[in-house]
């Protein structure tokens, strides 16, 4: 599981963010991006020594200033369906690609109309649709 997909799943959940300078920010995650830049709402900022507090309706934190994020335990169970389904699809796509490479071996050179055929759909015609059954066979594994 990728840390950033967990963070994305944690959107709308409360969290604690500690910055490298020791300040902590408690709030609800509104949004995040692939640099870990985050938007928080209903924020309480605590100074490094923990004896000064600031309340603010929202704030934006640059990802590179973050030390760590503390997230509610249940969020990790919510990411499971989402992200793992994605990585499974990716594994299948790679399998398909590998299968096609082998089948197209004899088709280089000449004009077989197969160049730039990124989907490689045509290349499979007349070959019993190559790897299709394999990919489908894997799908029900959930």
């Amino acid at each position, binding site marked *: *599981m990728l840390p950033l997909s967990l963070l994305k799943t944690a959107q709308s959940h409360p969290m604690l963010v500690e910055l490298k300078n020791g300040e902590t920010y408690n709030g609800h995650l509104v949004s995040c991006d692939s640099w*870990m830049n985050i938007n928080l709402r209903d924020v309480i900022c605590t100074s490094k020594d923990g004896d000064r507090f600031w309340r603010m309706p929202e704030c934006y934190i640059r990802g590179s200033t973050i030390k760590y994020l503390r997230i509610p335990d249940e969020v*990790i169970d919510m990411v499971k369906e989402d992200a793992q389904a994605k990585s499974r699809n990716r594994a299948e796509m790679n399998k398909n690609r590998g299968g096609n490479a082998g089948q197209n071996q004899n088709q280089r050179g000449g004009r077989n109309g197969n160049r730039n055929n990124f989907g490689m759909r045509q290349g499979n015609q007349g070959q019993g649709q190559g790897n299709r059954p394999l990919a489908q066979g894997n799908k029900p594994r959930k």
Partner: protein
Amino acid sequence: MSGLESYINHTVSIITADGRNFIGTLKGFDQTINIIIEECHERVFSTTAGIEQIVLGLHIIRGDNIAVIGLIDDTIDSRLDLANIRGEPLGPVVH
């Protein structure tokens, strides 16, 4: 693939750049070594009292802040008598 792959779902000890020690189960990481730690505990060392364990829960630790990730042997670790171990806390990484 990175050597961290084999640590997934195992107990690991993280030493961060500010000298703290986190223990927990490694659930994931990415190319910048941001990591997901489940059931995270912080162990606070002191020369005058035993090791204090603070339960923290689910954490994402940013890669910038990580100095060391070590694999923990659960059987050996459970034999530790934390209350009677003294040690100086680590300082922060000096660049």
